[in-house]
């Protein structure tokens, strides 16, 4: 049982980062990026190509993360412009449709060119025993990286001027403009950050097991669920929800079954919406 829970936590930390990326973009602009999972896959494939080319894994990982951030910026500067010009539900709908289109394009191109593409970052060494459970080094590394990134994010949003600026745009965009913050610039930077986070998730996931080219939609679904349960726009909420849902996922997959697990996770999202729409830590 402990093993299952620990696996769940490892998974959950990755979910958390994924959720953070998605919730940030939503909190800032009201857009749910349905292409998010595909960006993760894109980072993985780029890293795979670099590794196959003979370069060091670390270089490949960095390039993958940068590629993801880059694609995110491109998306923001192109597709998101017309979306942000709309307001309210028009914006939501257009955002959903355009990012859906982008998801098809990115995912389609990747599975077309690299139909068997997968990234696996093998971390050698003997398993380490945590609470009596042997955990692979890959899992440990993945968790440590996720925690470190999480801490950096908290520091960024809590203590830096720009980070506070981001929070201010989420809380009151007009107020932010009045104090001299350019919401458009902030959105682009955060979009890039969300892309980078997607890339990092690709790498940490690949440390635990192979990340295949078709994982895109599933990843987007997880990100969406974590975002909703954690509270749209809450970074800490996404992390918390991620870990919780990771554990739930692990327990359910182990004791019940994989298909039902997806339904349970989506059910958690639905339940949150019906009972506590602001999520765990949302406003």
């Amino acid at each position, binding site marked *: 049982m402990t093993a299952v829970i620990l696996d769940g936590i490892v998974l959950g930390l990755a979910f958390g980062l994924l959720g953070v990326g998605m919730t940030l973009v939503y909190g800032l602009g009201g857009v749910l990026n349905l292409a998010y999972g595909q960006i993760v896959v894109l980072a993985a494939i780029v890293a795979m190509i670099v590794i196959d080319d003979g370069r060091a894994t670390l270089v490949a990982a960095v390039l993958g993360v940068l590629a993801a951030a880059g694609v995110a910026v491109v998306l923001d500067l192109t597709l998101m412009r017309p979306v942000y010009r709309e307001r309210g539900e028009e914006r939501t709908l257009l955002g959903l449709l355009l990012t859906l289109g982008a998801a098809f394009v990115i995912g389609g191109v990747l599975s077309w060119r690299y139909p068997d593409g997968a990234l696996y970052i093998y971390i050698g060494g003997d398993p380490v025993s945590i609470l009596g459970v042997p955990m692979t080094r890959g899992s440990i590394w993945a968790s440590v990286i996720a925690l470190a990134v999480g801490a950096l994010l908290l520091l960024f949003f809590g203590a830096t001027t720009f980070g506070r600026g981001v*929070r*201010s745009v989420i*809380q009151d965009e007009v107020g932010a403009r009045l*104090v001299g913050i350019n919401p458009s610039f902030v959105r682009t930077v955060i979009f890039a950050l969300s892309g980078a986070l997607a890339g990092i998730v690709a790498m940490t996931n690949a440390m635990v097991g192979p990340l295949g080219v078709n994982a895109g939609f599933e990843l987007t679904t997880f990100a969406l669920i974590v975002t909703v349960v954690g509270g749209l726009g809450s970074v800490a909420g996404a992390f918390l929800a991620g870990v919780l849902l990771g554990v739930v996922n692990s327990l359910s997959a182990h004791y019940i079954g994989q298909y039902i697990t997806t339904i349970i996770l989506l059910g958690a999202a639905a339940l949150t919406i019906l009972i506590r729409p602001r999520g765990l830590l949302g406003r």
Partner: protein
Amino acid sequence: MPTSGRPALLEVEGLAAGYLGERVIDGIDVRVQTGEAVAIVGSNGAGKTTLFRTIAGLLPAMAGRVVLDGKELTRRPAHRISRAGIAYVPAERHLFPAMTLKSNLVLGAYPRRPDPATLELVYDLFPRLRERQRQQAGTLSGGEQQMLAVGRALMARPRLLMLDEPTTGLAPIIAQTAFTALEGLKKEGMTLLIAEQQVPLALSVAERGYVLENGRIRLSGSAEELERNPEVRRAYLGVV
């Protein structure tokens, strides 16, 4: 209208703005000299808020110009106008509710780091804010939120402070306190542009005023002139 010959800090010429193609304000000419306090007076719907929003860059002007100290600000985005030195305190305040009072103030100085001296000035002006530094802005009372909004605007060390209906939702005693604080600001040399429905209050602190009616400037003059004006007295001071 008698003003000194110096070029004004804020020049608004022929400004027109509105919503969905309709002009709510038109042909607005306003001048504010450095160190002056000017009031824009008018009833609800006269266009005061539209005027301020347009100057602040939240609404694009449909015609006319806004110039700050020679610098053209017409139709620039709000954050640029804020950085150019115009601080706008809207009636809705637009504070950051989930952040502490202090964080709100600190953000007022964006993108610069907050100046400790200015922060002290704000706390001296509004001692209540010092007490409630760590409190979340969303939990403050109406009066405190108003003070915080003004304080936040001051943190930017603006050239011009625009206040839209600063006494809205405040009990009369608090409103009086607010205007006393504004007097204090004026003494420090701050240039003020205030929109108010409550004419006596506005004219108590302002040297000059403009009367806005149906989106146009109806009257302008010194505070004494306006107070003596029979139309103003009838319409806004309830004097027959």
